[in-house]
C-alpha cells in the first residue's frame, strides 16, 4: 500500500476538469453532462528501431 493516503477529496468534491485522451465518444459524453473537458489529438509515438530508441533513451 502507499505510504501516503490518497487524498482525492479535492477532486471528488470540487468541479471536475477532465482531459480526454483517446476515444472521442467519451469527450462527447462528458460534454453532454456539462463537465469541463479538453480533448487531446493523441497519436501513438512513431516506432523507432530498438538501437535508435536505446540511444535516444540514453541521451534524454
Amino acid at each position, binding site marked *: 500500500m502507499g505510504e501516503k493516503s*490518497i487524498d482525492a477529496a479535492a*477532486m471528488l468534491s470540487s468541479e471536475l476538469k477532465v482531459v480526454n485522451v483517446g476515444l472521442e465518444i467519451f469527450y462527447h459524453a462528458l460534454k453532454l453532462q456539462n463537465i469541463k473537458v479538453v480533448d*487531446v489529438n493523441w497519436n501513438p509515438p512513431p516506432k523507432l528501431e530498438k538501437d535508435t530508441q536505446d540511444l535516444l533513451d540514453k541521451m534524454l
Partner: protein
Amino acid sequence: MKISDRLRRVSDGILEASIVMATETNKGILIRLGFSPSTIEQASESDMLIAIRAKDEASLVLATAKVDNLLESPAQLTTGDQEKASDIDAALRTMPGTNLVMLSIPGEHVKDISHKLIERGIHQLIFSDHVPVEDELEIKEMAAAKGVLILGPGAGTSIINGKGIGFSNAISTGPVGVVAAAGTGLQEVTSLLDQSGIGVKHGLGVGGNDPKDKIGGIMMLECMKILEKDDDIKVIAIVSKPPSPAVEQKIIDYAVSSGAKKYVLALIGGGSVGGSRKQVSNMIIRVNSLASSVLAVAKVLGDEHLHRALSRTYMQPEALVNLLQKEWGRLQSSQRFIRALYTGGTFTYEAQVILGEIMKDEPICSNAPIQRIKQLQDSFKSQEHSVIDLGEEEFTKGRPHPMIDPTIRKFRILEEAKDPEVGVLLLDFVLGYGANPDPVGAALDEIKQAKETAERNGRYMSIVAHVCGTKNDIQGYDQSIAKLGSAGCIVMPTNALAAVASAVVISRGKIDLTHPYSKYLELPHDWIEA
C-alpha cells in the same frame, strides 16, 4: 474505426461498413460477417480493406462516395464542435486545475503517460485494456505513494459526484458509494439503485485486475478509504467478481476494523472467505449477485427504500413461472439450448455463474468461460448452451465495442435463429453515456427477423432481454423496454432474473427455483436471520 462509424451513418441502407487493416483477425471477422472469402483473402497485411454491405445500390453508391471523400480529406473526421489540444501538456495548459485525465489509448502506451501524470499529482481513469499487469502494478504503487487515484486500467465506468465518466448512466445523487471491479456490474447496480429511488454519490471502477493477487487490491482499498471519509455516504457497496482470497480478507478486515460505515459485499457467485453469504459481521452484508446487492443497500437505508427496490427489481418465483409458461409452451421438442449474446462483460460472467449452477448437468460453453464452463472451440460459432461475451478481443479488434456498435450481435442473432436446437436468446441492452444512441432500436429488425425465421420453420423463438439503464438516460429507458415488449421479448428487470428466466423457459419450467432464489435472488429476511 472512425471512418467505419461515419460510413454506417451515411444512410439507413448501410447494413455494415468496415475499414480495417487486412490482418488475419480482421479478415476472419469480415468473412464471418458474410463478405466474400475469395476477395478478402487476396488482401495482405499491409492492405486496407473496405467492406460495405448495403440494402440497395443507391446506398452503396452513397457509401463509396463517402469513403473517397473521407480518405481524401481526413480532416473531416474531427467533428468540428471541439478544438483539440495538440498533446496532453497543451491540454493541461489550456485547462489549469485539471483534476482528472481519462485515458483510452492502446495499453502499451499507458505506463509512460500515466507516470508523467502521477508526477504532476493528476488522478486518472484508465479505460485502456491490455495494459501489462506489471505496468499496472508499477502505476498503482507509484500512484498510491504519491496520493494519486488510479481508476482502471480496464475501467470503463465511474461516477464522480453523480456525474458519469466513460460508459455510465444518468444516476441521481444519493447516499451510496460503490467500489467496483466490474464495469457493467457498476452500471447495473447504480442504475437499479437509481430506479429504486436511491442515488449514488461516487461509483469508482478500479479495473478487473485490481482485486487479483498480482495487484493486491491497491486501489480497491484506497477507494474504500476515500468513501469512508465522505460524510454524505451512508453505505458502501463493493461489486466484483470474486477477488483472490488474500484481497477478499483485506477488504473484510478493513471494513470490520477501520470502517465506520455499513458495507454490502457483492462478490458475484460468492467469495471464499467466511462462507459465501449472509452477514460476515454487523458491518457487512454479503450477497452473490448484482441484483441482491441493490436490495441489501436498500435494506440498510430503511424499509421504505427496500419496498421500492423490491417493486422495481424483484419478481416472486410464482410470478416468474406464470409469466413464462406461455413461452415454453410454444417451443418445439428439438429446441433445447439457450444462446446468450452479451455486450456487457460482467453480465456474461453473472449469467455463467447462475446458469452454471441452475443447469449443472447441462453442457454450457463460453468464449470467456468461468470455472466449470466449457471453452467454446470457436467464438464465432455457438454450441450447446452458449454464453457469449461480444466485448472480448476476438470481436473488438479493429472494431468498436458492441455497446457502441452492435453490428456484430445483429448478425449473430440471425445466425442463432437458424439453429433448430435454439429455443431462447438472452440479450442485454446497455443504455447511458458512451453507449449506442439506440441499442434496442439497432437490434429490433434482427429480433423480429429471428422470430420470423423460427416461425417459418415451425418453431418459436423465445427472447429474454434485460435493459440496464435509468429513466434519465438519453436513449430512453421506458421506450427501450416498450420496443422490446412490442417485438415479443420478455423483459426482465435485472440480469440475474433474465438468466434465471432463460433457464426456466428452456427447461419448460422444470427447474427447482429454490436454490437460485436463495443464492442469487435472496430476500432480506435471510440476512436478518443470519
